[in-house]
């Protein structure tokens, strides 16, 4: 037995309730395990207990027993953990300590006092394992998301450990890189025989390659410990707020009954023929509601070009427009120019060429503050936006800057906090909130200004399915009822599929597509250019020989939405 938790509990020093309650879990050598659960379910805490951050860097109260490699960890020093467990953290950017790739990989060796001359061959062969040998002298910051992930992986592999722990490895990655990462992890599992533990809430992406068991956590307890097929056939995912794979949702929508014996863990293993009749029948009876046409233009970008350094264009001759009341997505890989577009619209950088019109008015004539009254931008990291101590003050800040009467401010703030489900926290300090709640505070602080256009940069980052669904449903309502136009910037395919109707795709600073979302999602080549992948919904349609994949997706979303409203 490699890892065994028996009646293990843990309570953080700063909390009044235990985060882990009587955990009993066994992991054999060479197993591949996925731990899933909503935010606050305790899944990350389990990881911290395994790598020794608890109790050596984070304070709290442990009880029960945890053994790793047959040894009681209560007798461990930090270094005993590092010799057994290698951890790849969620945010790769923050774990780089070296200034070059080679140096970062060598970090663990340096700390073990390996002579400098002996490090080079080890670093080189480790870099080869993850195909980085040609980049040893580059700075990790210059690399793409996937390469960064491989650098941090190499930094762990250099230290021949048996257990590899991945803490939300896919959180910051685009779909294509996510797939590649899962493939590399799988290869390490098969070729090097490592024990793999992946903590993640994006279940469908993890299941891109086989896993042995899935541990489902909720409120500090293990609620399921079973094979993927069994778990997917059950209704446990729904009850615990984990998103089930899209193809399963589609099959269920079409009235199919999926049993664990049908191997639902992946679309490839699933025996599809038995569902064919059901699905085709469902699809043929479909009726796609005509969307009311939205013809009034709100925002027009024409010939927009901007370069940070005068050499390479970050945005190159981009033109598109957004109509009033639309829900649009902007897609593209990191560095494709998405964030620069936002900055140009906000007015914090000025275009080199081209102009931006809002309701026919040239934005260049308005100051940043004047623009912000009409275009609300919610940035990716809520910590960058929040500058007050109390939630009420934070939300009221923008209104107070306008010099509005305090009584009206009070009314408006309370109204918006109620809409965002934050009313009961209004007198709380912001530090007491979770990341997802902070994100909602930032959205509230923008919404209170009643902008005509709302731009959300990666709204799902750092949030679990349940909380972001609640938030986006709320934004969707605002879109439908108040006519607020919404633009989201994201590479979360689920989110884009479910909420947006039109997609604008950027690649290498240029606009490469501007079409209805379902059309974009039906073009694998186009998606690949933006480091995106097709969804399993599209693949399901293709497997079932459905030609009109676009209509298939549209009908699925329509039925899902009808169910959400009901």
């Amino acid at each position, binding site marked *: 037995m490699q890892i065994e938790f028996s009646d293990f509990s843990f309570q953080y020093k700063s909390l009044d309730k235990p985060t882990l309650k009587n955990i009993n879990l066994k992991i054999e050598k060479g197993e591949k395990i996925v731990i899933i659960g909503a935010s606050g379910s305790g899944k990350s805490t389990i990881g911290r207990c395994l790598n020794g951050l608890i109790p050596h860097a984070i304070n709290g109260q442990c009880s029960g027993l945890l053994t790793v490699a047959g040894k009681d960890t209560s007798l461990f020093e930090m270094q005993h953990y590092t010799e057994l467990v290698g951890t790849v953290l969620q945010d790769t950017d923050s774990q780089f300590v070296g*200034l070059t790739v080679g140096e970062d990989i060598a970090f663990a060796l340096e700390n073990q006092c390996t002579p400098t001359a002996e490090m080079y061959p080890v670093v080189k062969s480790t870099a080869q394992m993850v195909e980085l040998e040609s980049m040893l002298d580059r700075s990790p910051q210059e690399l793409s998301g996937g390469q960064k992930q491989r650098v941090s992986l190499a930094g762990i592999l250099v230290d021949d450990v048996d257990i590899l722990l991945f803490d939300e490895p896919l959180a910051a990655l685009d779909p294509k890189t996510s797939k590649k990462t899962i493939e590399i992890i799988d290869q390490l599992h098969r070729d090097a025989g490592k024990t793999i533990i992946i903590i993640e809430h994006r279940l469908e992406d993890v299941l891109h390659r086989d896993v042995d068991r899935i541990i489902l956590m909720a409120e500090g307890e293990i609620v399921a410990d079973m094979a993927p097929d069994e778990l997917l056939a059950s209704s446990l995912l729904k009850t615990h707020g984990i998103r089930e794979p899209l193809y399963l949702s589609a099959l269920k929508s079409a009235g199919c009954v999926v049993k664990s014996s049908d191997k639902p863990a992946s679309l490839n293993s699933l025996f599809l023929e038995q569902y064919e009749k059901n699905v085709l029948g469902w699809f043929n009876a479909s009726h796609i509601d005509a969307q009311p046409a939205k013809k009034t233009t709100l925002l027009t970008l024409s010939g927009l070009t901007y370069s940070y350094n005068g050499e390479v264009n970050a945005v190159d001759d981009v033109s598109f427009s957004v109509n009033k009341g639309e829900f649009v997505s902007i897609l593209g890989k990191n560095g494709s120019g998405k964030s620069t577009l936002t900055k140009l619209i906000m007015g914090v950088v000025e275009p080199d060429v081209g102009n931006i019109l809002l309701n026919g008015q040239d934005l260049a004539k308005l100051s940043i503050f004047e623009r912000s009254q009409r275009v609300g931008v919610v940035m990716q990291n809520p910590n960058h936006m929040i500058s007050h101590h109390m939630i009420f003050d934070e939300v009221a800040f923008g209104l107070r800057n306008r010099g509005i009467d305090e009584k009206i401010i009070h009314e408006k703030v309370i109204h918006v906090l109620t809409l965002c489900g934050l009313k009961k926290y209004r007198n709380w300090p912001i530090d007491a909130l979770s990341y997802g709640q902070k994100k909602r505070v930032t959205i509230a602080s923008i919404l209170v200004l009643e902008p005509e256009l709302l731009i959300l940069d990666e709204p799902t980052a750092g949030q679990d399915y349940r909380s972001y669904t609640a938030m986006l449903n709320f934004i969707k309502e605002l879109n439908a009822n108040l006519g607020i136009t919404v633009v989201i910037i994201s590479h979360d395919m689920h989110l884009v599929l479910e909420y947006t109707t039109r997609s604008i795709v950027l690649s290498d600073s240029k606009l490469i597509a501007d079409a209805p979302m379902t059309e974009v999602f039906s073009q694998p080549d186009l998606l690949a250019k933006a480091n995106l992948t097709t969804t399993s919904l599209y693949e399901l349609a293709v497997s079932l020989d459905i030609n009109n994949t676009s209509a298939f997706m549209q009908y699925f979303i329509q039925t899902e939405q009808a169910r959400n409203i009901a």
Partner: protein
Amino acid sequence: MKAEKISFGISYIDTGSVLHKLNGITKFVLFMAWVTVVLTTFDLRLIIALVCLGLLLLNMTKVPIKAYRALLIATASVLSLNALFMFLLAPQQGTEFMGTETVLLPLGFYSITQETLFYLVTITLKYFSMFPIALVFVFTTHPTEFSASLNRLGVPYKIAYAVSLTLRYLPEIKKDYVNIMHAQQARGIELSKKASLFSRLKNLTNILGPLIFTSLDRTEEISNAMILRGFGRHKSRTWYSLKPLATKDWLCLFSILVCVSLAIFKRLFETQLFWYPF
């Protein structure tokens, strides 16, 4: 305030020049020796030689001049201003040192003497002579190589590492700062010259608050990541980027030693602190 377009910062720039190929230790010793020599001397001949050599070395780094031109000019202006203040505070300092008095412009208490002018030029150039070599050091020494060198010269490795981590995370903090500034500007924080100095200072706290909190979060993450990879488990550590000293390094170190000895020798046997030919 709009975001500026910046192409170069003051940081390590790998141009692959001869100076880049020298060992970090050699460059660090060179820098320290330079400072020592400058501190021992008030000889304008030597100081001018050092300024020229420094600028020559700076040119040899092959870093484009536009990357540091503004800084050179800024430093020169600050030092000139400094000279002006020195004159205002002690207008007869030069006369005291040289022992003679040659008045060029009689203005009573603030009479400009040839000695004082000479004194101020010497002092200003003396300070300025340290600047090009500092730039050379920063441009050509990889921060971790610098830490490794510090550690090798006896500084505890945790302190040496903190130096390189600071350099490593400066760009990240700058990025955070820009993002926070943008977010706050959009919410009506005025940082441009439109607002009064007082309100601009007050508004700056709206940026510093979130910046400090983001940085603290980051610090916690880095320290966890470092602990997980075994940082601090032993009393010492080795360095991947530590290069062995090559023949050219030993040659440089030897010449540096000779120069420093000569400078100290000169200082000890000098009869007059200031070289004054007139």
